[in-house]
């Protein structure tokens, strides 16, 4: 985190250097639980990778079309024919989850990527822009961040209808400002680093400095941040599905699967538990992955 502290004066990082100097080269904060770290990373990677695969190939594997009414039994339990039971209208839950995961994972992934791309892009470039322009960009993102994400989504969906591009736009508008903030502070720090100044004295252009000197050093933080954003977006999307603003029928993301079957909760229907578990494993998996990545990065840095 210390890289986040703003450093303006060229000598401001002296303290940090000395602090590092006081550490033993081998005695620097080490984590004894490296093996555990590895384990959580593999679990995280496994779970997250699983959902990516489901998103990619799930619809191909689905035994029934997503919207097919296959059974007369409503909220049917697990059976050989319907491994995850049937939903509130007698559709095959397994097929619906396999298909629905694509929406959740795909939407969240696209939105997270776009949010990070826009946020980090502006965050990085604004450092190199003239002061007034930088200030303007910051003001715009500050404005966006102060509007609650669900309200933003609500107004936008009311205005333009709940299409997939709009959902992505709304979530990106909600989450890009956060990414911008982090990227901006990272880039502000990196821009004062001596190697950036070296590049300046070499006469390099702004774009080169941004792309080749600054960006490679913030990519990991940006990726970590993107992972967090992914998790938030999954949850925001399922919240929006609850409010009827999310992915629209007959398509259904995991959140709307939980939502539309929630009346089966009182009877403990698989139809509601299965998609809820799916969301849970997806977000926990992503979190574990991010956690292990960011800690191992911290370790490497020492």
């Amino acid at each position: 985190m210390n890289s986040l502290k703003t450093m303006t004066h060229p000598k401001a990082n002296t303290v940090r250097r000395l602090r590092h100097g006081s550490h033993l080269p081998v005695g620097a904060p080490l984590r004894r639980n490296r093996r555990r770290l590895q384990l959580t990373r593999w679990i995280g990677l496994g779970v997250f990778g699983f959902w990516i695969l489901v998103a990619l190939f799930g619809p191909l594997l689905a035994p029934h079309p997503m919207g097919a009414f296959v059974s007369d039994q409503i909220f049917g339990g697990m059976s050989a024919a319907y491994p995850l039971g049937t939903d509130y209208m007698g559709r095959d839950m397994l097929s619906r989850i396999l298909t629905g995961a694509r929406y959740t994972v795909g939407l969240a992934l696209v939105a997270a990527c776009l949010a990070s791309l826009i946020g980090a892009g502006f965050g990085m470039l604004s450092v190199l822009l003239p002061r007034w322009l930088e200030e303007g960009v910051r003001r715009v993102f500050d404005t966006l961040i102060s509007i609650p994400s669900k309200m933003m989504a609500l107004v936008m969906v009311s205005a333009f209808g709940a299409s997939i591009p709009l959902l992505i736009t709304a979530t990106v508008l909600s989450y890009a400002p956060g990414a911008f903030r982090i990227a901006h502070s990272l880039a502000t720090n990196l821009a004062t680093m001596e190697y950036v100044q070296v590049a300046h004295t070499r006469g390099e252009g702004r774009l080169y400095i941004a792309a080749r000197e600054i960006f490679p050093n913030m990519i990991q933080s940006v990726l970590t941040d993107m992972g967090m954003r992914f998790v938030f977006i999954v949850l925001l999307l399922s919240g929006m599905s609850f409010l009827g603003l999310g992915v629209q029928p007959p398509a259904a993301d995991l959140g709307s699967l939980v939502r539309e079957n929630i009346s089966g909760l009182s009877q403990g229907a698989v139809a509601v538990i299965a998609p809820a578990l799916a969301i849970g494993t997806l977000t926990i998996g992503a979190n574990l992955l991010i956690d292990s990545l960011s800690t191992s990065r911290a370790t490497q840095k020492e």
Partner: protein
Amino acid sequence: MQGESLIVRDLEIVATPDGGEERSIVSRIGFSLAPGEVLALIGESGSGKTTIALAMLGYARRGCRIAGGSVRLGETEVLSLSPVATRALRGHRVAYIAQSAAAAFNPSRSLMDQVIEAALLHQVMDRRSARDKAIGLFRDLALPDPEHIGERYPHQVSGGQLQRVMAAMALLTDPALVILDEPTTALDVTTQVEVLLAFKRVMRERGTTAIYVSHDLAVVAQMADQVLVLNGGCEQEQGRIEEILERPRHAYTRSLLAATRPVRLADSMPVATGQPLLEIAQLDVGYGKLNRDGEPSDKVLRGIDLTLSAGRSIGVIGESGSGKSTLARAIAGLIAPCHGSVQFDGTPLPPTLRGRTPDQFRRIQMAFQSADNALNPAHSVRRLLGRPLETYFHLDRAERRRRIDELMALVKLPTSLLERKPGELSGGQKQRVNLARCLAAKPDLILCDEVTSALDTVVGAAILELLAELRQELGVAYLFISHDISTVRALCDDVMVLYHGECVEFGSCETVLEAPRHDYTRKLIGSVPELRPGWLEHHPLAMAEGTPA
């Protein structure tokens, strides 16, 4: 409490790096100290000296473990104490003075609060007497305004004063043993003398047993009775300080000694061509907002004049905050001067980067203090060296490859390092890459900003040698910025002494350093510890203070 004896036997400390096997970092260390004696642990970074010192408190840092041996303080076996008893020992019978007081003081609590915390915690005395005693110690340590300095917060007190406050904190409980971990490394030389004097006097008065950790033999010579020379966690040599200084038996000790006193390298240089390369006239530089007269609020340099001929080397010396680095940054175009002119090779140099020509960019290179920060950690060495070749000379792939190999040979690095990233190199290697990158531009002038100060003495000496060789081979001129007079003395033809942003003295190295005219220069030179015991006692400051109170 008087100092107690300290006997250490067969100390073994192991570390477990992430994912790695447990390995020994300190092995079979033993020494014994009589009450009131001071032992110096000396060695390069990574030699395990701090780790050993911390073991005296029964403490090992995260990832490390004290695997065996005994530390006997008086009658107490430190390593076999229970956690509670260990806590009772720390800050009471054994006290620790950290390298950087600025980092080791909690920024959010007042100094007095922190100074007396241990005493109150261990119920050595009540708050009032602790305060009184602390004020007494402040006075003994020659801190200004001893009555009220304790009410301040760490950021309101200078580094040297903080270091002394920390000493007061350590000594408040009259510990039997004090660990001083490089207590003056972060300080300017002039401040260092004051702090060393204060430490020495107070410790002698109290008869404190102490362990003094340092990489600087000259400092150790002033403070220690015994020396333990470490390398790679193993003892190289142990003995009385005088013996070690005069009759070093071990080769490593000898190289340490040699590095502490670098030989003059500048004399072997060819005489300069005389053509002025860089001419600076009446240069003013500052930070902050401009006021009505166009003057910045925080003016760092005032009225600097300087002429550097091609192939020559000028040293700029001064303590931190004197404006040395700002001068280099102004020449490099990183900060625009508010006044004055800079001419390079006869043409005025545009004040900022924007107006400069690619050729000017090429001909002036800057080597930053810390290669850690100056080398982009994301790039490989090949890329770091290749980029200037690309931008300045537009070389094609094969030519670049050839030139990079040349550069590596020039800075005496094996080409096997080319694919590594800076994080995988040692400090000296990094600094060499840093220099190689400057050389890639075939520059006429290299601005060296404290290039050796972050390095260990031996490594730093090697870099100095390299710089001297390069100058000889390539005829490049240096503006060599340093706080260390001996490095300037070793490398430079001329020297400029900066004090509070003004040049107080300028002249050839011999003249200025051998016969300084300005008071500050004299003080600066006089503050560099000499490699002989007793130098400190005869320092003018010690004489001025008279007999200790």
